[in-house]
């Protein structure tokens, strides 16, 4: 918890003054019934109208001062908690940006988004409530009990017992309903799932004329949810009646005893009214406290998740200070093995290969054969588990990692664009490029024509690039990689949505670039046929390397792939 204080540091004043003012309001509020008691016991008893009027004025003044204090506190709490949230969010987002692929894989993007948005919001309202209510409610509850004890210790004890009982009721009911609430969420998820399936699979449901069966599925799930909700409802419907009953039976007992006490002149009418008033205040305060407890439980769970994220640090260092030696081979792998989980289950096994500068390399293999894993090691997105990955003469770990990555232009599989404009997306490759350079990159990627057609570089790009077709997206991401004038260009199955003609045109444009080492990953044998070297991967191992003709004769797997596709493509 301590680590979070730094995000509140600039709001120290608000954190101290806010609760203080709230406390003043609460103290004034507690005194009101005593003033009222004095009005009745002294003013009315002595028939002193001016005393009564003064008493009224004091109560109004206390109300006004209390209101002013409360406003100040709410304002402080809003500023401090929102500021806390803002600082923490910035810190968490920055932290996420220091993580490497390995941690991103482990945490998953959905959970990262959740922590940045929902968990921090939860913590933020936790802070607000600490400032606003943590001082107030317990103070009112405890203060009321103490004042009752001061008025009459025996009746005060009854009040104390009632408060404990109310607390017990609240705790019990919350405790009982918690498991049902999480079940309820699951049952609701199930309804959402079935609905989603019927939207996504609408054609399949109709093709099988399975309307009735789907309705039955939904009905069962809905019935299930209904039963659970009613169960929760039955339990939580006890809260209000039970607390009401406890407090008011307490009042009844107090009245009953008061008769004796008034008769023996140890208690007055005004004091009875004050006691009853305190009972009501205690009830209200206890209900607020029970809400606070559930809020803090949630905020605490959120805090744990955020702490876990902040405790996760990048497994990758910043690298050394080595300089590139461009005369050396562009890529060299020496006995490289790699496993995602850090176990013996290797996704790449003892890979050794060399790619000379300026060459075009093809990588082919089935899904899960390790193609993407292989290229992920080159810009140091992951570190090899064993062996050495060398780029331009030195191990990748000896270069500053940012400079190393600037060397590469990568077009990932399932290319994604970001909302903004075409220009803002291309900027990612190089933010100092001129329009001409952007256009050259677009031309090389065969994207210039459709970009022009749409209206040029400043045309908007929707979230994920949804306003472009799959093929257009792929070409734009190729252009994005080219804008940085990379020394090594990596295309990971990046032309799969292009027709054969465009695919070929893009490849020949890229081949014409000078001094660029190109790595092509493809499922299509025809796309890599012309490469200078082809590597065939199977189960994380290189099972063949060489030119097309050599491999076709010497590598059975390569031959099989070519033959199976040749039936389609001749």
């Amino acid at each position, binding site marked *: 918890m301590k680590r979070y204080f730094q995000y509140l540091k600039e709001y120290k004043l608000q954190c101290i003054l806010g609760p203080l003012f709230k406390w003043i309001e609460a103290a004034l509020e507690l005194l009101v019934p005593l003033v009222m008691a004095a009005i009745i016991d002294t003013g009315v008893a002595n028939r002193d109208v001016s005393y009564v009027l003064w008493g009224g004025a004091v109560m109004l003044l206390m109300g006004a001062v209390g209101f002013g204090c409360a406003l100040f506190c709410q304002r402080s709490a809003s500023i401090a908690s929102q500021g806390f949230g*803002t600082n923490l969010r910035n810190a968490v987002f920055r932290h996420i940006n220091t993580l490497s692929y390995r941690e991103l894989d482990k945490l998953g993007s959905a959970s990262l988004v959740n922590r940045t948005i929902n968990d921090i919001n939860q913590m933020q309202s936790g802070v607000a409530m600490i400032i606003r209510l943590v001082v107030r409610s317990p103070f009112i509850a405890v203060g009321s009990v103490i004042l009752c004890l001061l008025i009459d210790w025996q009746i005060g004890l009854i009040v104390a017992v009632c408060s404990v009982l109310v607390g017990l009721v609240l705790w019990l009911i919350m405790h009982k309903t918690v498991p049902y609430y999480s079940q309820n969420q699951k049952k609701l998820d199930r309804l959402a799932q079935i609905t989603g399936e019927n939207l996504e699979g609408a054609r399949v449901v109709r093709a099988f004329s399975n309307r009735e069966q789907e309705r039955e599925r939904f009905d069962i799930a809905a019935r299930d949810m209904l039963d659970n909700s009613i169960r929760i409802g039955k339990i939580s*419907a006890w809260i209000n009646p039970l607390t009401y009953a406890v407090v008011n039976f307490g009042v009844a007992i107090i009245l009953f005893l008061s008769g004796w006490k008034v008769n023996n002149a140890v208690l007055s009418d005004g004091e009875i009214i004050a006691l009853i008033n305190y009972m009501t205040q205690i009830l209200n305060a206890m209900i607020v406290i029970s809400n606070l407890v559930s809020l803090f439980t949630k905020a605490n769970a959120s805090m744990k998740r955020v702490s876990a994220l902040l405790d996760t640090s990048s497994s990758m260092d910043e690298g050394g200070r080595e300089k590139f030696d461009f005369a050396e081979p562009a890529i060299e792998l020496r006995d490289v093995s790699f496993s995602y989980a850090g176990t013996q289950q290797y996704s790449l096994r003892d890979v050794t290969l060399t790619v000379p500068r300026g060459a075009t390399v093809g990588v082919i293999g089935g899904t899960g054969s390790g193609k993407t894993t292989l290229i992920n090691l080159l810009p140091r997105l992951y570190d090899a588990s064993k062996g050495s990955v060398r780029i331009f003469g030195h191990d990748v770990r000896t270069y500053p990692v940012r400079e190393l990555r600037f060397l590469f232009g990568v077009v990932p599989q399932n290319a994604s664009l970001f909302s903004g404009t075409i220009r803002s997306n291309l900027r990612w490759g190089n933010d100092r490029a001129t329009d001409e350079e952007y256009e050259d990159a677009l031309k090389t990627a065969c994207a210039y024509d459709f970009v022009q057609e749409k209206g040029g570089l400043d045309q908007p790009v929707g979230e994920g690039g949804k306003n472009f077709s799959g093929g257009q997206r792929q070409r734009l991401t190729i252009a994005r990689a080219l804008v940085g004038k990379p020394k090594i260009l990596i295309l990971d199955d990046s032309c799969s949505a292009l027709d054969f003609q465009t695919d070929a045109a893009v490849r020949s444009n890229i081949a014409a670039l000078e001094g660029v080492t190109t790595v092509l990953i493809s499922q299509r044998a025809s796309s890599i046929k012309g490469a200078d070297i082809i590597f065939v991967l199977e189960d994380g191992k290189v099972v063949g390397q060489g030119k097309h003709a050599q491999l076709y004769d010497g590598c059975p797997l390569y031959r099989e792939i070519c033959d199976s596709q040749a039936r389609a493509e001749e």
Partner: protein
Amino acid sequence: MKNGLKKNLTVRLLHYVRPYAGFVVGTVIFSLLYVAFVLLGPVLYGKAIDAMIGPEQVDFPTVYRMVGGFGICVLLAFVSQKLMGNCVNSLCYRLIRDLRRDAFESLTASRIRYIDSHAQGDVMARVVNDVDIVSDGLLQGVSQLFTGVMTILATLGVMFFINYIVALVVVVLTPLSLFVAAFITKRTFKSFSRQVKVQGKLAAHVKEMIGGQKTVILFNEEENSCKKFEEIDAHLYQIGWRAQYFSALTNPSTRFVNAVIYAFVGVLGAVFCILSNGGELVLGALVLSGFTPGMLSVFLSYANQYTKPFNEVSNVVTQMQNAFASAARVFEVIDEPGEDLSGTQHIGKVRGDIRIENATFSYSPEQKLIEGLNVDIPAGSKVAIVGPTGCGKTTLINLLMRFYDLQSGRITVDGIDVRDIPLDEYRKMFGMVLQESFLAEETVAWNIAYGNERASREQIEAAAKAAYCDYFIRNMEHGYDTVLTGNVSVSQGERQLLCIARVMLADPPMLILDEATSNIDTMTEMRIQKAFHKIMRGRTSFIVAHRLSTILDADLILVMNQGSVIEQGTHAQLMDRRGFYYRLYNSQFAK
């Protein structure tokens, strides 16, 4: 929202409430009882206090009677409040269930056009979230409103009965609290909607950037992404703390208004106590019954709770507005017209002759797609559909499956116009395997038996074997009983094999198949090819073709471009024609 529409919605919602009229009556009765007993309580203990006049003057029998009565009131209020809660819950949850069920039923019957033209997330939100909002706002809201208004009225009634001058003071001060509540609600609403906007912007940035974090790292874009985030976050701070502040005003303001009313009532009551003389209160010409400390205690206890219902009422109003908006959205789904299931012609045994005669179709009137299409397909033919991406191959499937209806012309099966065949019966004649293979989050066996609920385990396994999926199903943790959640890794190709097994089990007389284009590993792809071959034997089949072998085998090739069929014939005929197909073939297949 227009009033007529609101009225209409209310009528429709009442229609949903009708089966549960018992709960409604229960809610009304129990909440009336609850309000009555809760308010009667202070009156009784006020009398008890008045019976304690002073030392040695306490009227014990009255105290006992009144305290006893108070105890009974509390007990009855306790019981009626609990029963009221049960009634409201039972009503709400049942209504939620019924609304959801009807919305879902409407979805399962709706036309494909509706599903294609509406965002899935939005439709789902209507079925799942909006229904909750309707119940929260309308039912809980209405019951809260009812209790709140009853409490206010009854409180005023009792106060007027005891002493109308003090009651009048309370009534005069009431608008103060209403005014405060309205002011806060308005400011809160405004600043909240501003906050929601910026929050949405922040969330969108986070989702997009963290979703693409690997690309961010790849391009060294971390710093820019953080800066953009901090910029939005700073904006959120400015708007957010104000929104928070306004919403946090409600409680202190209520307390303040309460304090004012409490002070006025207290002072006036005390003065009246002083002025009362022997059971009479004389104020100039006015003569009222005497005022006592007990009565004052009743007023004070009311004054303490009095503004609470006002706050609740103003909350309920906003809630109800949301609820009406959501109800309109839910009813839009429920009202969506379904497919036409009628038809009287039963085919019995299908041969599989299909003719498309003079068919015209387009999705929207501005853009013409298919015009005057004629195709004649004898039973048992293999029809290959080819064309560049986006040429409208799915349109043809849509028409064959009657997902969309022709604008003119007709399609016949074995000489019968398909529109005369009951839709459910018609669609069962086709087996369909699409590229985006849809499987539900249920067990493997459930998915294979989809559409054939009565299939035995042996039949399911036989179909799986025939479709070459037995080997990978057996490798799953629970075999055929594995639930296909996101955690179970089934590749795209394997999913398609499962879909083939599903069709094999259904054993339909005609087929519609979609060959995979990419991202399927070679071995699986060969299995899919073999499985396709196996099921096509002897059946009229349509296949969206990407493989040369499929085209060469076909009895008829439909060449599509820009939405319509531009050439048809066998491979040899089409090559001879040297038209679009010839060029397509040379660029796509003959490399």
